C-alpha cells in the first residue's frame, strides 16, 4: 500500500514536471521560426478583446531618458484620463537594445500595438513580412490630418509603392555645430564650400586647437559623415539603386571619392576617434577643447545641458564643388511610431497617434523637450533662438536623406561601418574598403530575396 502510494506520487510528480516543461518548450519555440506561423494567423488569436470594456494598448518606445520619458508618461496619463476605456502598457529601452528587442517581439504574439520604428530599411524589413499596418487609408479618410503633417517628413515614412507606415515623433537632421566665440577670435567665417571648410580647419589647427570633435567607438557617427559625403559624390539614382539590398552594387567611383574626402578630415579630428563614444566627443566640443562638432539637431538639448553658457551656431555640410551628387539634400530623418498589423484596436491606435503626434502635443513637446514632431505649426510660440534655427533647418529642407546606417541592408551596413572605422585609423585604403563593401553587397542581393 505504502509502496503504491509512493509510486503514484512519483508518477504524478513526473507528469507535472513533463507538463510544465511542455509549457516552456511551447513558448520557447514560438520565439523564433514559429513566429511566422502565428504572424499568419495572428489576427484570429488577437481578435478576442481584453476582459471587460478596458482596451489595453501596448506601446514600446526607445526614449527611456528624461525629459522625454517623463513627457511621454505625462501625455499618456492625460490620454488615459480622457479615455477611461483605454489603458496603456508602456515599455522602453535604450536605442541599441531597442533595435534588438523590437525585432524579437515584433514577429511574436507579444508584439506591441504601437511601437517606435526608424524609417527606411529598418521598417521595410518588417513590411516585407507584413508586420506593419498600412496607415494610408486612415490618412486618406482624414484629409485634415494628412495636411497637418509636414510632407517632406512623411515622405520618409512612405515606401516606394506609396504605403505610409509611420508618423514622426521627432524630426532630426545633421549639421555642423561650431563654437562662435572661437570663430570670431580667429576671424573665421562659416564655410560654404569644401575648400573653404578645409581652410577653416587649417586656421583652427594653426591656432593650437584640435578642430573637430569626433567619437566613433559606436561606429555610427562615422557613417553619418559618409552618408553626407555620398549624397554629394554619388548621383541620387545610383544611391537609390545601391541602397536597395536587391540591386546594391556600390561600384560607382563616387563612393571611393567620398571616402577620400572623409580621409581629408581625419587629421583634423581629436586623438583616438575610434576609442571614444560620440557623447564623450561632444563633451570636448561643449568644454571648448574642439571648435566643430558634426551632430544632430536633437542633441541641442544635450549641448545646452552640458554647457548652458556656450555660444554656438550651426552650418550646413559644405558643398563639394564639381561633385556629381546632390548638394541640396539634408542628412537626417524623422523618427516615429508605427502600428502593428496584428493589433486588435487599429482605430484606437490611430486616434491616439493623431493626438499624441499632433500639433497640440507637438507644441508642448517642442517647449518641454526641445524636439519637434511633424505637425505643421509646432514652432509657433517658440522663443529659444537655437530651437527656432533648428526648426528652420528642417522646415527649409527640400528633401531629406535618411541616416546612412538606417538606409543600408544590415550586413552591408555592418561592413560599411567596419570599413569607415578602419579608414579612420588609416588601416585600409578607400579602394580596398569599397572592394570589401562590394563583396558583401553582392552577397546581400542573395540574402534579401
Amino acid at each position, binding site marked *: 500500500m505504502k509502496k503504491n502510494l509512493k*509510486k503514484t506520487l512519483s508518477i504524478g510528480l513526473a507528469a507535472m514536471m513533463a507538463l510544465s516543461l511542455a509549457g516552456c518548450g511551447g513558448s520557447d519555440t514560438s520565439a523564433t521560426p514559429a513566429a511566422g506561423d502565428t504572424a*499568419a494567423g495572428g489576427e484570429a488569436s488577437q481578435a478576442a478583446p481584453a476582459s471587460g470594456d478596458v482596451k489595453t494598448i501596448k506601446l514600446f518606445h526607445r526614449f527611456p531618458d528624461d525629459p522625454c520619458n517623463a513627457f511621454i508618461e505625462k501625455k499618456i496619463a492625460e490620454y488615459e484620463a480622457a479615455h477611461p476605456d483605454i489603458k496603456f502598457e508602456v515599455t522602453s529601452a535604450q536605442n541599441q537594445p531597442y533595435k534588438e528587442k523590437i*525585432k*524579437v517581439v515584433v514577429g511574436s504574439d507579444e508584439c506591441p500595438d504601437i511601437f517606435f520604428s526608424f524609417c527606411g530599411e529598418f521598417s521595410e524589413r518588417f513590411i516585407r*513580412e507584413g508586420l506593419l499596418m498600412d496607415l494610408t487609408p486612415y490618412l486618406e479618410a482624414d484629409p485634415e490630418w494628412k495636411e497637418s503633417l509636414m510632407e517632406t517628413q512623411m515622405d520618409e515614412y512612405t515606401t516606394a509603392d506609396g504605403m505610409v507606415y509611420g508618423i514622426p515623433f521627432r524630426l532630426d537632421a545633421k549639421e555642423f555645430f561650431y563654437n562662435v566665440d572661437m570663430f570670431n577670435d580667429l576671424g573665421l567665417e562659416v564655410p560654404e564650400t569644401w575648400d573653404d571648410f578645409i581652410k577653416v580647419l587649417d586656421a583652427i589647427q594653426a591656432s593650437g586647437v584640435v578642430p573637430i570633435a569626433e567619437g566613433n*567607438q559606436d561606429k555610427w557617427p562615422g557613417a553619418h559623415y559618409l552618408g553626407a559625403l555620398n549624397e554629394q559624390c554619388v548621383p541620387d539614382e545610383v544611391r537609390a539603386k545601391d541602397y536597395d539590398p536587391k540591386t546594391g552594387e556600390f561600384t560607382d567611383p563616387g563612393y571611393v571619392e567620398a571616402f577620400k574626402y572623409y580621409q581629408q578630415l581625419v587629421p583634423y579630428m581629436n*586623438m583616438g576617434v575610434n576609442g571614444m563614444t560620440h557623447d564623450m566627443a561632444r563633451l570636448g566640443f561643449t568644454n571648448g577643447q574642439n571648435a566643430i562638432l558634426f551632430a544632430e539637431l536633437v542633441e541641442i538639448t544635450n549641448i545646452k545641458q552640458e554647457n548652458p553658457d556656450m555660444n554656438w551656431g550651426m552650418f550646413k555640410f559644405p558643398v563639394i564643388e564639381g561633385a556629381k551628387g546632390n548638394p541640396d539634400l539634408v542628412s537626417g530623418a524623422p523618427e516615429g511610431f508605427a502600428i502593428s498589423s496584428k493589433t486588435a484596436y487599429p482605430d484606437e491606435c490611430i486616434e491616439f497617434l493623431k493626438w499624441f503626434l499632433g500639433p497640440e502635443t507637438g507644441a508642448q513637446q517642442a517647449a518641454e523637450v526641445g524636439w519637434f514632431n511633424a505637425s505643421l505649426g509646432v514652432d509657433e510660440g517658440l522663443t529659444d533662438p537655437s530651437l527656432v534655427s533648428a526648426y528652420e533647418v528642417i522646415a527649409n529642407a527640400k528633401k531629406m536623406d535618411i541616416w546612412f546606417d538606417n538606409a543600408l541592408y544590415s550586413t552591408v551596413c555592418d561592413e560599411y561601418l567596419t570599413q569607415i*572605422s578602419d579608414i579612420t585609423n588609416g588601416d585600409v585604403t578607400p579602394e580596398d574598403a569599397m572592394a570589401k563593401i562590394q563583396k558583401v553587397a553582392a552577397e546581400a542581393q542573395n540574402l534579401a530575396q
Partner: protein
Amino acid sequence: MKKKKTNLTPYLYIIPGLLMVLGLVYIPVIVNLVYSLFHLSSYSSSMRFVGLDNYRRLFTNDTFPIMMRNNIYYCVISLIVQVGFGTFLALLLESKLAGERFKTICRNIYFIPSLVSLTAVGLMFNFIYNPQLGMLNALLKNIGMANLQQTWLGDKNLAIFCIIAMSQWQFTGYITLLMVVAFQNVPNDYVEAAIIDGAGPVRRALSIILPLAKEQLLVCTIITVIGAFKLFTEVYSTTVGGPGNSSQVLGLFLYQNAFLHDDMGMAAATGVLIFIITVTASIFQLKISRSGEV
C-alpha cells in the same frame, strides 16, 4: 516478478531530470543544428533551406580568422594568467608564508572583482581606457611615460588585448579562490609526512598539493577554455567588435547576426561551431588529465 517492479521506480525518478536536460540542453542543440541549414530571421514568416551555405559564408568571412585568433588569444592568455598565475596565488595564500588574517584579507581582495557585473566592469574600463579623459593615459602621463599613451580601445592592434586584460583583472581572483578551496581539501597528513621527509615548499607544492588538487585544476581549465570561446559581454560592453572588426569574437558575431543582421541561420551556424570547439576542448582535457585517477 517482484524484482522487475522495483526496477521501474528508479527510472521514474530519472524522468523529470532527464526531461529537463532534454528540453533545455539537447533539444535546443539539435534545433540549433537544424536552423543552421536555413536562412531565417527572428521575425520572418518563412525559412529558406540553404544547406551548408551558412557554414560556407561563416568560414569564408573575412572576420572569421580574426575571431578565431581573438578567441584563441583570450583562451591562451586566460589559461596562463587566470589558471597559472591564479593557482600560484592560491599556493602562496595556502603556504605558511603569511598570517591567517593577511590571507583572509588577500583572498577577499582577489575575489571581489569577480562579483562585479560584467557590464559594470565594461563601462568602468571604457572610462579607464578613454584616450582623452581616461585614467590609464593620465597615469602614464603623470609618471612621465607619456610616450606610452595609446588610444587603447580605439587601436586595432591593442583593442582585444585591452579587453583580455580587463577579464584577467576580473577573474584571476575567482580561480584563486576555487584553487584555495581545493588546496584546503588536501589532507594535512600528506603535507606533514612530506615535511618530515624533508620536502621544501616547492617540492610539496609540485608533488603533493597540486596532484591532489588535480580535479579542481581541471575544472578551472575547462571553465576558462569554455568561457574563452563563449566570450561576449566583455566585448559587447566595450568595443562591440571595433575598431573595424579587430576585436570581433565568435560570441558577439553570433549575437549580431541573430539580432542585428536578421541572419538567424548564420548565428546558428556560429553556435554550432562554438559548441563543437568547446565540447572538443573539454573531451581533450578530460582525456589528457586522466580524470578520476590519482
